[in-house]
Every structure is written in structure tokens, then in C-alpha cells.
């Protein structure tokens, strides 16, 4: 069940009404209802994987109980290991067996099986949240829940279930210990987030994908140099629109139910350095990697060489987290190497002068664009074909004034003043509820009518 569909709209309307009625009349039912709704949402993707999701939740809850308050480090390791094994089987087993096959053949071993493993939606996100629960409880940052209900709601809560944001146990679980306040639903801001996210996904991301990026990456040699260049920049805009759009919708939907997720994107292409980029892009993942991987590895506490090793390792594992493909490994390695180079060259200090800042921005932005080309390419051969296509000079045929306008609109939205949404909220705040509903409904319909036909899945659904 994808967010921008009529089915989800009906589902959410029912959950919204049931949730607030339960808050008022049957507080004990609030969490069971949220769990039920989340399981129904997930079961729409797969009933079997829904059972597995609950099993991961119960696993995390059980190990949390045992390892709470700094006790039994070995048990915590076992709990984390179990969740990672689960993730590893689905995401990496097929890849590793495929990659090991030629080696086995060279050694004269019988061919290895090559299982076709279906990836459960959101597995990378909910396994990281399960780890967050166990570690936070072990560190004493979150309470070990006596009953599994709250842990299951935390793990399965449908707005973040399929593609994040990765919400920390220490941040979200306390919200489940009290009822949301019926008198304070931030409907204007939530509506703006949902509409903004919908526009970014349905109009900008989908149009750039179908009109430009997908055709070029499917067959680079059939397209001209300008098409290829525009597709590379276009994908950077597309992935921002797609993923930040999803995050905005998730944050808005959770807010309508009285719950809070932290912001996941903060104008990442404004960054002047790679380290700044990672403080602005997919914030919930970068802070997760920092707190649960980089710091436990030693962070920047040891020698400079050790810090660089930790940075490289963290970014490499961050790349692998996205998927089992050499392109993701290279994407992570490129970001890791760029972060290390930035440290080595002392570029993390603030640039002086307008030209210096502009230069830093241009270098950072183009490293990000180049890395996203690796991220988007289905295999390494495609990257070679893109380079070849740039040199070959086939005729350009894809770009249109509309696509350029859409890309420009995406960039304009990204670089808009940071308080744009607050300003829009100030305009809408005085409107009476019926007028606000009418405005939101018309805006939603206009966005869907402006979008290309069909609903392409979100990019991060595959992770």
C-alpha cells in the first residue's frame, strides 16, 4: 500500500478516526489499534513477511529485557547478531553466492545454489530500529518494556515502516507512554508536509524518472551527451524529491496521529563540505551510523589514522546497507574517501570569501552527483556506457522545456528559504477548518492531476 494512492487515503482516514476516537473513549485500545493498523498496512505488501516482522519485534523485545541497563553484553551481541543475520540472509545471501560462484568453479567445486530471495519491504529500516531498541535499552537511554506491545508499535508504526525515517527507540518509545493531546493536532503543518511531499514525489520525482533518468540509465548509448548529463543531475534532484518527499509525508502522517519524527532532510545540496552534506541528507541514517557504528568503532577518539579508518568503514557499511551490489559499495567508498580527503586537507574549517565558498559548494555538489550516478546505475557496465555515451555524441532527444522546468522547480523548492513552510503555515493558520479542508483537497487533486499516470514505487522501498 503506497502513500500516494486512493487505497491508502481510505486506510488513513479510517485509522485517523479510529485513533482519535480511541484516545477519547477507549485509551487502552490506542496502541493495539495502531499495531493492528500497521500490520494491515504491511500485510498489504506480504502477509508472510508481516509474521516475520512481528517475530523480529518480539526478538528485540526479549533481548532488550535481558540486556537492559548495561547487563550482559554478550546477550546484546547475540540479539544484534540475530537481527543482522536476518537482514543479511534477505539482502546479501544471493549476492554473495552469485559472487562466490566463479571462485568455486575455478577451484573445481560444484556450482553453488543461486536462490532468488524476495526482499521484504522496509527490512533495512525495521532491523535498524530493532537494533536501536536493544542498544538504547542496554545503554540505559530507553526503558526496557515489560510488555511487547509498545516495542511492536515502535517497530511497525506504519508511517515509518516502509522507508523510514529511522526513528530511535529513545525518541519514540516515551511518546507511547502517554496519550497524545486531543486538543493539539498540528493539522496545518502536517497538511503542508504531506502536500509538499506528494508534489515532490508525484510530480517532480516521477516525471524526472519516467521522462529522463530511467530511459538514459536503461540504455545510455542510445542517448546523446546532453541527455546523459541532464539525467545525472536529474537523478540527484529526483532522489531528493522522492526520498525527502516520502519522509515529509511520513512526518506529516505521524503528526496527524499525535506522534513526532525528527526531520530527515535539511536542504542537503546547500552543503559546503561532505561532512555537512551528511548532517543534512538522510539525517536519521547518518546519525544512526554515527551513534551505533562510528562511535563504537572508536569515532575520532584515537589517532588520525584510526579516525580515517573508522570513517571509511562506516561509509562503506552505509553503502552496503543500501543493497548488495558493487555500485553501492563504490558509492559508500567514494563518500568515505571524500570525507577522509576533506579531513586530510583541512577543508572542514569554514571557507572564507564568496569565491571560496562557491568553490567548496561546487566541489561538494559534484562529488554528490557523481556518487549518485554510481547509486543509480544497475551495474558497473552501465557506468562505462554512460561515459562512452558522453563521448559518442548520439543525438539528444529526451529533454523538453517541461522537464527542465520540473528540474528547476525541484531545485527552487530545495533552495527556497528554510522557513518557507512556516510562512505558508502563517498564511493558512487563520482559515476556518472547512476552508482549510477545501484548500488541501483541491491542492491534493491538482498534484495528482499534474503527475504522470501511475504510481512509481519510492526509491527507498527497495532497501
Amino acid at each position: 500500500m503506497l502513500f500516494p494512492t486512493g487505497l491508502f487515503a481510505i486506510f488513513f482516514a479510517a485509522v485517523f478516526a479510529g485513533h482519535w476516537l480511541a484516545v477519547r473513549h477507549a485509551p487502552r485500545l490506542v496502541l493495539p489499534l495502531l499495531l493492528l493498523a500497521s500490520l494491515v498496512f504491511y500485510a498489504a505488501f506480504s502477509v508472510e513477511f508481516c509474521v516475520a516482522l512481528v517475530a523480529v519485534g518480539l526478538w528485540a523485545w526479549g533481548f532488550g529485557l535481558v540486556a537492559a541497563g548495561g547487563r550482559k553484553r554478550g546477550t546484546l551481541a547475540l540479539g544484534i547478531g540475530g537481527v543482522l543475520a536476518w537482514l543479511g540472509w534477505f539482502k546479501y545471501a544471493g549476492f554473495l553466492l552469485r559472487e562466490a560462484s566463479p571462485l568455486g568453479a575455478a577451484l573445481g567445486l560444484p556450482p553453488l545454489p543461486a536462490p532468488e530471495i524476495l526482499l521484504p519491504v522496509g527490512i533495512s529500516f525495521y532491523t535498524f530500529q530493532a537494533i536501536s531498541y536493544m542498544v538504547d535499552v542496554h545503554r540505559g537511554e530507553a526503558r526496557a518494556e515489560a510488555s511487547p506491545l509498545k516495542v511492536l508499535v515502535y517497530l511497525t508504526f506504519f508511517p515509518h515502516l516502509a522507508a523510514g525515517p529511522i526513528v530511535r527507540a529513545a525518541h519514540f518509545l516515551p511518546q507511547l507512554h502517554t496519550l497524545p493531546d486531543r486538543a493539539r493536532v498540528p493539522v496545518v503543518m502536517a497538511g503542508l508536509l504531506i502536500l509538499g511531499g506528494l508534489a515532490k514525489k508525484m510530480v517532480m520525482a516521477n516525471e524526472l524518472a519516467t521522462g529522463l533518468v530511467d530511459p538514459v540509465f536503461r540504455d545510455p548509448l542510445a542517448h546523446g551527451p546532453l541527455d546523459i548529463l541532464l539525467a545525472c543531475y536529474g537523478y540527484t534532484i529526483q532522489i531528493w524529491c522522492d526520498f525527502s518527499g516520502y519522509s515529509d509525508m511520513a512526518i506529516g502522517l505521524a503528526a496527524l496521529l499525535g506522534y513526532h519524527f525528527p526531520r530527515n532532510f535539511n536542504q542537503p545540496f546547500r552543503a559546503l563540505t561532505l561532512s555537512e552534506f551528511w548532517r543534512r541528507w538522510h539525517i536519521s541514517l547518518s546519525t544512526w551510523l554515527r551513534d551505533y557504528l562510528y562511535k563504537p568503532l572508536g569515532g575520532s577518539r584515537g589517532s588520525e589514522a584510526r579516525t580515517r579508518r573508522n570513517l571509511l568503514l562506516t561509509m562503506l557499511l552505509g553503502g552496503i546497507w543500501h543493497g548488495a551490489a558493487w555500485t553501492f559499495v563504490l558509492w559508500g567508498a567514494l563518500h568515505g574517501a571524500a570525507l577522509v580527503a576533506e579531513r586530510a586537507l583541512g577543508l572542514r574549517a569554514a571557507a572564507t570569501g564568496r569565491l571560496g565558498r562557491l568553490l567548496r559548494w561546487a566541489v561538494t555538489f559534484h562529488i554528490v552527483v557523481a556518487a549518485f550516478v554510481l547509486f543509480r546505475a544497475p551495474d558497473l557496465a552501465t557506468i562505462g556506457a554512460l561515459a562512452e555515451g558522453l563521448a559518442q555524441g548520439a543525438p539528444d532527444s529526451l529533454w523538453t522545456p517541461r522537464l527542465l522546468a520540473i528540474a528547476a522547480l525541484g531545485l527552487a523548492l530545495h533552495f527556497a528559504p528554510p522557513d518557507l513552510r512556516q510562512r505558508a503555515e502563517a498564511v493558512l493558520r487563520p482559515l476556518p477548518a472547512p476552508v482549510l479542508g477545501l484548500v488541501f483537497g483541491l491542492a491534493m487533486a491538482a498534484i495528482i492531476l499534474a503527475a504522470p499516470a501511475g504510481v512509481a514505487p519510492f526509491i527507498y522501498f527497495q532497501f
Partner: protein
Amino acid sequence: MRQPWLQTQAESGTDDFSPRSATRPAGRAALVVGLALLVFAALRSAALVDAAYGLPLAPGTEALISAAEGWDTAMAALGLPAVAEALAGILSTGR
């Protein structure tokens, strides 16, 4: 602790909500959400019929399909699909 993100000012750029975020009681919020979905359903009534036909066969699916078709017929009588089509034509200029 009740929606503390609506009570404390977060560091700039780290959150979408703040004490300045306008809030409404759940009943008013439900009115906003309900009306927004109603307007949306009115302008996208044909898509609702398609969505209903896409539902898995289960008790109640037939009733949902009938309701969606009835809604679509009512909206067509009001001329709303034509308005939506004209709007879609304008918004897809240059595609």
C-alpha cells in the same frame, strides 16, 4: 509528556514543528482531513472505481465497488470529471 515538540523550540533546521505550529482539536482536524479527502474523491471519482476494482476479493469488496461506481456516477452528473480532465490537460502541458 504530551507532544513536547510543540512546546520547546528545537535547534534551527532540526525540526518541522515548534511552539509556533498552529494546532487544532482532533474534531476540527478530522473535519479538515475529511473534507480534503472528500474534495479529492470528488475530483478523482473515476480513479476510485479503478482502485475498488483492484481490491482483492473479500467480503465487502462488491459493496465497495458498487459504492465507488455510484459515487462516480453522481460526480459525473455534476460535471466534475470534465473539470478534472480540463485541469489535467492544463497541468500536463508540454509533456
